[in-house]
């Protein structure tokens, strides 16, 4: 039983880290066409996350793989129930990945323009779809002993869409702050202004989400049972406010760090509320998928715990090292000099 709780925590951590890391790539991707006014600036934007985006996306693969290995029933039902939504997500992630590699391979404005549009769409779509999917998971899916009673369109309910918008705004601010740290001069300033411009909208939608979650979901049950847990959403709101305060003080790196904390805490807010469910049923609580009724055997969980405790720290160590190697902001001179850059 302890292993199921360990894996629930790990499951939440994997998603939170994934959204923290890919969130700024998705955000920067959504903004790249708008913030980058010349080909040089657009290349700078892509190259700010060029060395790391692929490694960031692997957190998603790992979150998926961990769900499969630790909670196979949840993995099976979640992926088949959300078939169409995941398909769109998959198409967007596939397109986004090749965009970065292909864009610079032909010296043609039409070619680059087409890929720039593709980057924008294929960054926006995952942000929205992840939000819609998590909004619906928080809300619960219409499932019972007979299976799933929803459709792709039924995912687009008000709370699902609200969560989708929340994710889009969260990543827009996150990505803009990332770019303000990782670029220089006019581009960096524009990125910061953009972050500040989206921030009030993010605050408003986040507040709306916290209010709407009360009637729309059962997330607050855990918080009411153990009010100490309310520290998590409270810290989420505080770090969101800190983001804006640091930004106003011109402390770009601190603002971005606060934004990282915000993303982690937003995901944590949802995950804490879900426990011990992975996917609640909105029509029959007896058919909710919990960490107890959908997990792997104790033996498998034990093996996987050993694997995770060995490899995840190693992964984190070399990832930190890589972020340090590439910590300098990217300039137009860098991308022109480096023939291998995107």
């Amino acid at each position, binding site marked *: 039983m302890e292993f199921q709780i360990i894996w629930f925590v790990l499951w939440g951590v994997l998603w939170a880290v994934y959204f923290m890391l890919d969130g700024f790539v998705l955000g920067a991707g959504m903004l790249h066409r708008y913030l980058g006014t010349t080909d040089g600036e657009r290349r700078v934007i892509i190259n700010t996350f060029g060395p790391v985006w692929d490694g960031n996306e692997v957190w998603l*693969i790992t979150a998926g793989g961990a769900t499969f290995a630790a909670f196979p029933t949840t993995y099976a039902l979640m992926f088949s129930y959300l078939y169409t939504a995941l398909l769109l997500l998959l198409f967007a992630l596939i397109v986004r990945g090749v965009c*970065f590699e292909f864009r610079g391979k032909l010296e043609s404005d039409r070619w680059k323009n087409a890929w720039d549009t593709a980057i924008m769409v294929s960054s926006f779509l995952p942000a929205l779809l992840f939000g819609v999917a998590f909004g619906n998971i928080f809300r619960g899916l219409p499932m019972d002993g007979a299976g799933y009673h929803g459709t792709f369109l039924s995912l687009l309910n008000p709370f699902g869409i609200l969560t989708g918008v929340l994710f889009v705004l969260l990543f827009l601010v996150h990505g803009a702050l990332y770019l303000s740290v990782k670029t220089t001069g006019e581009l960096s300033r524009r990125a910061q202004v953009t972050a500040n411009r989206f921030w009030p909208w993010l605050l408003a939608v986040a507040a709306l989400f916290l209010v709407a979650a009360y009637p729309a979901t059962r997330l607050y049950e855990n918080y009411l049972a153990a009010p100490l847990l309310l520290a998590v959403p409270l810290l989420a709101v505080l770090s969101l406010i800190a983001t804006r305060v640091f930004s106003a003080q011109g402390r770009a790196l601190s603002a971005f760090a606060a934004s990282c904390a915000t993303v982690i805490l937003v995901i944590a807010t949802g995950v804490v509320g879900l426990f011990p469910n992975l996917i609640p049923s909105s029509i029959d609580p007896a058919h909710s998928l919990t960490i107890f009724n959908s997990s792997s*055997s104790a033996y498998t969980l034990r093996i996987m715990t050993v694997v995770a405790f060995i490899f995840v720290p190693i992964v984190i160590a070399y990832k930190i090292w890589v972020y340090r190697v590439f910590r300098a902001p990217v300039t137009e001179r860098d991308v022109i000099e480096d023939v291998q850059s995107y």
Partner: protein
Amino acid sequence: MDVVILSRLQFAITSMFHFIFVPLTLGLSILVAFMETRYVRTGNEVWLGMAKFWGKLFLINFALGVVTGITLEFQFGMNWAEYSRYVGDIFGAPLAIEATAAFFLESVFIGVWIFGWNKVSKTFHAVSIWIVAIATNLSALWILLANGWMQHPVGYVIRNGRAEMVDFLAMVTNPYGLLKFFHTVVSGYVVAAFFVLGISAWHLLRKNRPDFFLPSFRTGAVFGLASLFLVLVTGDFHAVEVAKTQPTKFAAMESVWETRRGAGMSLITIPDPANERNSVEALTIPSMLSYLAFHRADGEVKGLKDFRKDERPPVTPVFLSFRAMVAMGFFMTLLALLSVIVSFRGTVEKHTLLLRVLLYSIPVPYLANQLGWIVAEVGRQPWIVYGIMKTSDGVSRSISAGQVVGSLIGFTLLYGLLGFIDIFLLAKYARKGPDGDLASFIKPASKEA
């Protein structure tokens, strides 16, 4: 059409498309790492140019390999939910380990390699491409252990209505999975070798930069011949393992209907599945089949008639794919041998016929790889996990045929478009040769990018 057929078709299309890019990644990463190491050790800039030129082609190919891999992970849950639920306890583990222990390494250090030319030391830059090469091959190990488990399930019990893992070590030392891993990765090396040989041949036929393409040619030739030798050896042991653990697949590969001791192998065989016999069997080598199956001339080869009709794989596609794959293997071995000989005699450029054949042989190992997968996966049918779960029982219950038709059309269009662009870019940069990159290495401000 029903959801099972459509989902199988979709899995076949998406995994075969994925496997256009993977084998080249497996082999070319090693070759690029070798070239860069030569540069670091000798300081000879031709080797640096080679690492950059072949590295650029490597990256164009790599991008599609990575993104099409996510599809496969998602698809187990999307289309094969009953399968995932039933076997996730044991099958999910290698997939999760692959992501944590291999895929992270590969994708983090590929970033270091692409963007780190001026950020890390020369030696560490070469180390980072070695890490990519090793991690890519480790990835293949975990994926093929997972596939090996579907072929020959070990280390599990059926409990609580599903297959539960009871012996992790048995799964990771499953001989079927390990043999499959070795055979598959060395087949990937052959793809890379023929890729390098074919493109080098194209340039050598045009007398373009022989100082650059002759060493490339030799590297490809030696690597190709060594890999082909390993392909044949591992293939032979793999076949023995198949005969032992998957008699229906082995019988279909060789179109054997009657169980026989000391079975011969007919070089010319035409299967007649409707009548459960072969309509033609000629040029028979006595006892050969028993020897191939058991490394013993008197081994008993099981015939398909020993098995229930509904537990036999479709014979013709498995048989034809296997024969064609083996024929291609010998054809490529001959080509690689000739390439090594002319390379060490220093007469490569005189053999224009060989160069032309090599150019047009670039697709041959690709095709052989795909045929190998047809043997492996169609040959496993009707089982999704050999002997314990039928493919038709593994499909998701909540999806409709309409949904799968839609996703199948989507994948076909998207993959078709991306595959076309990728091959176009590969051809463009392969033709262009190394000059642009070398020039820009010497004069950093060059417009070449």
